[in-house]
């Protein structure tokens, strides 16, 4: 199977802080990559390097045949093909739900407005918010906003979606509705890289789990390998702490 995203020996420094140290991973078509680790371990930075919201200090990142980290990289094209879902949703507050979803297809992809709207309605139905298309973000609950944000990312028909702690800002009951949408996407074969603390979701949907600590990948494997038979001591300690909590 061809790889969707390939991260090769990537390092990233912020001034004197090392955020990523020789990180390598390969995400295949349809993979659900689940990245765990304590805060400050570099998980979010890795995601942000993949769509080049941050520049790497060294190393290469490929999305299919495009070199993301190259000096001549078509950053816009890379971002078009890479959806991103943020912890704080970042919906556009001045636009209705449907305009939030259709704006990028219309402006960036020059999709016909009618077509963009039909597509947006289908996506809203998929995330269970058909009745909210005329609402403004501030009229929605956090969970609803995040589902709209997922629909907005999907509207660009991305090759991979990056989830940056999508449920960390949500109450438990809202977390579930967002995770359900993500599960649905995973079953549908969407390639996803998820930074999250929702171990239940990882067990249900992840194809690969990566444990990061102090800017490095410590261990990588199937959910069964990582959760049930972690080899490294640091992984064991982390899981013990997380699962106990």
């Amino acid at each position, binding site marked *: 199977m061809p790889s969707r995203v390939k991260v090769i020996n990537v390092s990233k420094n912020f001034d004197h802080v090392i955020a990523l140290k020789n990180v390598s991973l390969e995400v295949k078509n349809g993979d659900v990559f689940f990245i765990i680790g304590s805060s400050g371990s570099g998980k979010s930075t890795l995601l942000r390097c993949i769509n080049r919201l941050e520049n790497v200090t060294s190393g290469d990142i490929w999305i299919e045949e495009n070199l993301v980290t190259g000096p001549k990289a078509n950053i816009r094209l890379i*971002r078009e093909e890479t959806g991103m879902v*943020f912890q704080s949703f*970042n*919906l556009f507050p001045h636009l209705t739900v449907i305009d939030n979803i259709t704006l990028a297809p219309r402006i960036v992809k020059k999709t016909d407005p009618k077509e963009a709207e039909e597509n947006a309605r289908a996506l809203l139905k998929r995330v269970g918010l058909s009745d909210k298309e005329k609402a403004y973000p501030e009229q929605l609950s956090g969970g609803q906003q995040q589902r709209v944000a997922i629909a907005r990312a999907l509207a660009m028909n991305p090759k991979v979606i990056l989830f940056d702690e999508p449920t960390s800002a949500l109450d438990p009951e809202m977390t579930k509705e967002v995770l359900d949408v993500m599960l649905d996407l995973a079953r549908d074969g969407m390639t996803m890289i998820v930074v999250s603390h929702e171990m239940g979701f990882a067990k249900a949907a992840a194809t690969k789990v990566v444990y990061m600590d102090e800017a490095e990948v410590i261990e990588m494997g199937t959910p069964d390998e990582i959760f049930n038979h972690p080899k490294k001591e640091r992984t064991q300690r982390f899981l013990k702490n997380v699962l106990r909590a």
Partner: protein
Amino acid sequence: MAKINSKTKIHITDGVLIPGRDDSSLFSAWRIAFYGAILTLILLPVFSPRPYLDLLLFVPDGILKTFQVTVLSIFFALIIGLLVGLGRISRYAFVNRISTVYVEIIRGIPLLVQLFYIYYALAKFVRISDITSAVIAIAICYGAYISEIFRAGIQSIPKGQMEAALALGFTRGQAIFRIILPQTIKVVLPPIGNEFIALLKDSSLVSILAVSDLLRRGREFASTTFDYFETYTMIAIIYLILTLFFSRLVAIMEERMKTDAK
């Protein structure tokens, strides 16, 4: 030395206080001043038509000129302010530097001196008509102040908005015009309304040139009748009515904006 609490900030506007409906004490102060001024404007000519009524009939085209200068100046000042404001947050060091230097220079020179400079000093090279000079000078001056409002407004929008737009494939320019600026409008409208009122008042400086604005018309009237006290009393009242009227208009617009957002 006593440590000064750096979080304490005194915010004083250079326009007039803009009274909202929920700001009851300010609103009633506005009413007293506004209706008091209108009453005076009516009563003085009624009881003493000479010189008050004569003056009232003499100045209307001055009011018109004052409006003309104000509206044209604010229009160009907004364009300059937006461009320079965007320049101030530009990632290009050169654009950034130029914009900042512009703001620093302009804000450090009195408007009256700038007026003289464009009308008299530049006359050495180009002849610019009085009203054009006035509009250019005021627009350049207020553009610098308004650019700071735009810059602050743009920077008040959470960083996540730009990131979300970039992540969707927008260029920075598209993101600024489609995502950031529309959200900025609501933030910058009140201070810009304030600048408008301040500009209306400062437009009286153009009477120094040959522009026959409200103040100039008053001077012309007084120089023939020698009724300085009566003339400038009326001129002051007319300016007061105008600024109070616009301050209320700005307040109403703000309230509209607030309810529209819901």
